[in-house]
């Protein structure tokens, strides 16, 4: 079966964006988006785990009995999360400290388990790797954008660089996280709704002609 990379990419980044469309992985999204750099760090960590666990689960999909597939998936995911933790502690200690508890919590991140169950356990290795990559990128982009907006408004900085002295403390706190997330989801839904609508309108004459 031929892998439709275009569809996988579109699903991960837009149609089934894990953060803004499926509303998965909400806990790190709300807690870690105080800075854009945290968003990138967390996003890349999740992307690595997604790719590796998807590949491994796809390879072992016929070996793992279906009765124990969830514990087996969690074991595989936990292994890759531990590898990410060890690498980050060694080479990126500041980011490791900044992500704190949310790094080991990637093990129970819904995005990873959902992709393992719904995609990797049913598809080939290359398609699963691509799915992991684009789902991870969708998550990373959403977290980084949210982090940048909250950092600019709540701290007056972006990626740690000072822009101005003006800041609104609300955006740095928990309530600001919920508010920013809601605005992002609303804007994303509005854009995708309008894009779908204009696509339908564009295809309408062709449909009429076909009839």
């Amino acid at each position, binding site marked *: 079966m031929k892998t439709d990379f275009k569809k996988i990419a579109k699903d991960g980044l837009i149609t089934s964006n894990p953060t803004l469309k499926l509303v998965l992985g909400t806990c790190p999204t709300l*807690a870690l988006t*105080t800075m854009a750099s945290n968003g990138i760090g967390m996003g890349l960590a999740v992307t690595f785990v997604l790719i590796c666990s998807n590949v491994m689960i796809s390879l*072992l999909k016929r*070996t*793992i*009995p279906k*009765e*124990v597939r969830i*514990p*087996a998936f969690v*074991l*595989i995911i*936990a*292994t890759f999360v*531990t*590898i990410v933790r*060890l*690498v980050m*502690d*060694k080479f990126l*200690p500041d980011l490791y*400290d*900044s992500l*704190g*508890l*949310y790094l080991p919590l990637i093990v129970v991140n819904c995005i990873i388990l959902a992709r393992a169950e719904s995609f990797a356990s049913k598809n080939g290795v290359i398609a699963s790797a691509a799915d992991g990559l684009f789902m991870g990128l969708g998550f990373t982009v959403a977290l980084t954008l949210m982090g940048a907006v909250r950092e600019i408004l709540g701290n007056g900085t972006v990626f740690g660089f000072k822009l101005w002295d003006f800041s609104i403390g609300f955006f*740095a*706190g*928990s309530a600001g996280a919920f508010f920013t997330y809601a605005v992002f989801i609303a804007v994303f839904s509005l854009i995708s709704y309008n894009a779908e609508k204009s696509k339908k309108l564009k295809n309408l004459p062709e449909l009429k002609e076909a009839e």
Partner: protein
Amino acid sequence: MRSLFKNVWFKCITALLLIAAVSGGLLSVLNDVLFVSAEERTDRAIVKIYGELKQYDVEYDAAQDGAETIDYGYGRIDKVFTVDNGADYLFKTTGYRGYKEGTITLWVRVSVNGGVYSIEKVVLESYEKQTLMSKLGGEYYGKFRLSDVTAEYKAGRLFSATDEDKNYNAVSGATFSATAGNNAVNCVLKYLSDKETANED
């Protein structure tokens, strides 16, 4: 015997055990390769505090065999280093009574100038049970800067949770987190005061 190999539960247990064994093996190898030693962590702290790696000697290390525990009830001293041939002291200290009985471990730099100890810089090392403790920035740690540590200690002015600390509740979860930080620095004050008293005697 053949039926055992075809048994679903046998297959399930074998699959899980195999995955666990392979994962365990891989992680134990990687743990050896990527292990961050106590010396490496100390070097990192020194670079974080001084901006460059400095020469240091160990004055006290609680992890060393036979070392006496320095525990004041509200916190403990983990390590004491003398940096730049005694021009500075660097403490690794842990404060208790944080959020949900959590702890905070800090690095405290104390300079020695004509027998007067001054706290120059306080940096977070690690924390337990206080998930967002790392969000507290220089503003919080800046309050610990003191020009004469022992005089303040003798006057009874130890650090305690202030109204300002309550501003950090939104990100740290509770006032107690600030208390653990205060306790960690108070341990340094107590240590230096005891040291001076011992010298006077």
